[in-house]
């Protein structure tokens, strides 16, 4: 039986969680999207209301089970459910939002156990059109919380960027184990 590891993708609506998993999943993804009826807050046509699920197979035969959380806060109860048994979390940030630093704070708090164990990586998207806040700003935010986590500018439409985030997460986990 191959080893399996559960990895979470979380972040605000529109940060790219579903896109990220879709970009790397070796199996047909499970998506639980509904039509977004509240366009006043988010312009997206659809929103994840349950969870996303995909898989990545590693060279050693083990399998990464990728779970995407719904982004909107009224689905916070799902974050707790989906987080059970997770090895690590990738927090995706949309740098085009009004206050991405505050956004990341929500997820640092909500996934505190994983974050404080260092089992987290932050991926910041849309930096090509919205260069601020910078990665230095995110590091300053983390330092203010006594946290040291890797932060990367990414485009989650590119599979390589998503794989890089997973690779870094595993590197961090291995270093913590050593």
């Amino acid at each position, binding site marked *: 039986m191959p080893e399996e590891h559960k990895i979470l993708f979380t972040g605000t609506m529109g940060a790219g969680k579903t896109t990220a998993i879709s970009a790397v999943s070796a199996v047909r993804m499970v998506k*639980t999207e509904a039509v977004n009826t*509240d366009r006043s807050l988010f312009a997206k046509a659809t929103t994840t209301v349950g969870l996303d699920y995909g898989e990545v197979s590693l060279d050693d035969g083990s399998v990464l089970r990728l779970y995407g959380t719904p982004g909107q806060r*009224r689905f916070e109860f799902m974050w707790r459910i989906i987080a059970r048994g997770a090895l690590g979390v990738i927090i995706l940030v949309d740098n085009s939002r009004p206050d991405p630093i505050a956004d990341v704070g929500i997820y640092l708090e909500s996934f505190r156990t994983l974050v404080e164990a260092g089992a987290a990586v932050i991926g910041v998207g849309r930096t090509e059109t919205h260069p601020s806040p910078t990665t230095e700003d995110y590091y300053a935010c983390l330092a203010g919380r006594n946290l040291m986590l890797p932060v990367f500018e990414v485009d989650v439409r590119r599979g390589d960027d998503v794989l890089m985030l997973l690779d870094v997460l595993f590197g961090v986990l291995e270093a913590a184990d050593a």
Partner: protein
Amino acid sequence: MNVPSSEAVRQSHGKRMQDALKELVSRNPGILAAQVCTSDGFEVASVQRDEESHRRLAAMVSSLHALGTAMVHETELGRYLNLIIEATEGKCLMMAIPRSSESLLLTAVASPTLLFGRFHQSCKATCESLGNCLLETEAV
């Protein structure tokens, strides 16, 4: 697909939906609460529970509906109809309202004393009534 917001549905159909839910509850004393919500988790009409509880319920129902639909698709069982949760102190039934393109969901909570068959039939009839309500407004 252009699906109206919960506020738009509330304004156009809210009163009739509220009346349909009140009738469901009054005709079935074992039904403790009932709600219509959008598939993305916003409440449209509700009877019997407090506001905060209704909001949480709407979000949960939306997740369950989405997961149920994904499971129906995964197991190639055709089209999602409803989801049942049975517990020691009662049961819940969640149904997609017809003629809403699965954008509206009915949820009812019942005590253990209400027989499941009656619960199911009553909810199904209310769903039909709610679906007709949407049609009639479109026809105007």
